């Protein structure tokens, strides 16, 4: 059965008192795929993960993981998932290795299998040197990585990672991406939340953008970029030619900006196939010489802005990142 859905949610609703955490969320992740759930703080990402991992009951709607209903068959679901929550869930007094072995054995793994797998994961997440130390002395980044290792200890078919790289330095982030890709290579299905647009862009096969408890857009990163937001055209002319703006007018969306020296031109353009060719042709017809043409695809930041009319929590996140690594 190729591409059967390993994670499915229909109309999930969850209230916490008067706060609506989820207002009707649908998700579907085929086997072996990575879904990136993107959204600012408070968008409902963590609530969705808590429901899918059986930690929380939905008020409305239904969800299944690996073919089992999360409310009706939670035990079956738990046998097939690994979870790395946003807050670390380590035993501070145990060493890194003891934490992994405990989680492995509580997951039903045999002792010898657990030991082997723990050694392997500690190695892959660069924690071998710290494995024998109590985790209360670990840095924020080390905790994240050990949590991640704990979620993978039983090699689960489905993995839920709530902001797996928050608080990691760039190098460890790449290391974590590598490990996640490795899991997917072994057939694992992954749902990860992130506030980092580039992370979703690099890692995910498809993206669901959350805002205020709803999925406001979904698709592949490419689809999202082309569906929303226009591309940005930057042209450098050989000599200043004010009529260039007029020549490009049919392609432009909104106003063009011309640099002081009159040679550089910047404008939003329709994001369609052949846009660079069309621009060069239009300028050529007007007898204008072009030195350089660049078309920038919209970033997911642009997409988010276009979808919500708000900036992402990038600033806030940058602060959090500093705090977490401090």
């Amino acid at each position, binding site marked *: 059965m190729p591409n059967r859905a390993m994670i499915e949610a229909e109309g999930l609703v969850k209230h916490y008192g008067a706060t609506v955490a989820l207002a009707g969320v649908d998700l579907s992740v085929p086997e*072996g795929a990575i879904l990136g759930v993107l959204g600012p703080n408070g968008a409902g990402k963590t609530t969705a993960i808590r429901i899918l991992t059986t930690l929380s*009951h939905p008020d409305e709607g239904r969800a299944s993981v690996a073919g089992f209903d999360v409310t009706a068959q939670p035990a079956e679901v738990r046998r097939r998932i690994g979870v790395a929550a946003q807050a670390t*869930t380590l035993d501070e007094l145990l060493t890194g290795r003891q934490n992994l072995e405990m989680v492995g054995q*509580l997951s039903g793994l045999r002792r010898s299998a657990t030991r082997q797998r723990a050694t392997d994961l500690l190695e892959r997440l660069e924690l071998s040197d710290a494995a024998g130390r109590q985790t209360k002395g670990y840095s924020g980044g080390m905790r994240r990585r050990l949590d991640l290792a704990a979620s993978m200890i039983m090699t*689960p078919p489905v993995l839920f990672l709530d902001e797996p790289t928050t608080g990691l330095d760039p190098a460890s982030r790449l290391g974590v991406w590598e490990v996640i890709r490795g899991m997917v290579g*072994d057939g694992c299905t992954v749902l990860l939340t992130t506030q980092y647009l580039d992370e979703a862009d690099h890692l995910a096969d498809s993206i669901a953008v959350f805002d205020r408890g709803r999925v406001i857009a979904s698709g592949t990163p490419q689809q999202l970029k082309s569906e929303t937001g226009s591309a940005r055209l930057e042209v450098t002319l050989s000599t200043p030619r004010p009529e260039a703006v007029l020549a490009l007018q049919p392609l432009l969306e909104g106003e063009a900006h011309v640099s002081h020296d009159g040679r550089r031109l910047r404008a939003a353009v329709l994001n369609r196939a052949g846009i660079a060719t069309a621009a060069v042709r239009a300028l050529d017809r007007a007898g204008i010489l072009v030195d350089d043409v660049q078309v920038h695809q919209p970033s997911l930041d642009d997409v988010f802005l276009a979808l919500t009319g708000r900036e992402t929590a990038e600033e806030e996140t940058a602060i959090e990142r500093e705090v977490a690594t401090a």
Partner: protein
Amino acid sequence: MSVRTLTIGDAPPAWFGQRLREILVLIRRNLIHILREPMQLSDVTLQPILFTFLFIFVFGSGIPIPGGSYTDFALAGLLAMNLITSSNGTAVGLSTDLNTGLIDRFRALPMWRPSILIARSVTDLLSALICTTIVVVAGLVIGWRPTTGILSVAAGLGIALLFTYAICWTFGCVGLVARNVEAAMSIGFIVLFPMAFVSNAMVPTQGMPAWLRVIADWNPVSSVTAACRQLFGNPNPSALIQDWPMQHPVAAALLWSAALLAICVPLAVFLFRRRTSD
């Protein structure tokens, strides 16, 4: 893309075997905690030594016991008192676990939730065993002598430990209800100290005001203490009291233990589920 078959545990292990393994893994975890922070054990090591010497030398000089020495009288009481107060550790331990992120990790694992409670109660029973040993040794050092056989003494210690186990579940419930660790600790002490002292543990109840004496004689701690005195062959002034528990202390101690377990085990499981679901 080659897809490796993912192991889901192994074959589903037998239910009982897996539960037993879980409980052992969790007990091991609790024991590692004790090794890392040995002061956790002061309740069952330093405190019993301190109490034994303080009570016997301070009170012992002023309280006459008909038919024997205060040391012989007091040991069963010290045993009960130290064991009872140490059960606050269960409330504190559970409350600590509930207030860390670790509990979310446990909840998403394919484990049986009551395993966490059972592992906690067994760990606390192990520390109660340490406490018992220390009280008995300290008692022997300062002159306590049982006058019955070894089996009878063992039966007395067994009853005290059984009751401690039941009380651990009771205070487990306190830990599950308390909002945080500090609250668990203070609720525990507020209940435990009157329970330990309004009893026949350290003084004969005959001297108490009538209303207090009724409470003391029906206090389960008095039943346990009287049962131990009877089984150790030590002075037991409570035998002269006509109330049923004082006439049948062994039966009363066993009934109290059974009743507490019958109520508190399901209650703790219920409270634990309620506390860990949303």
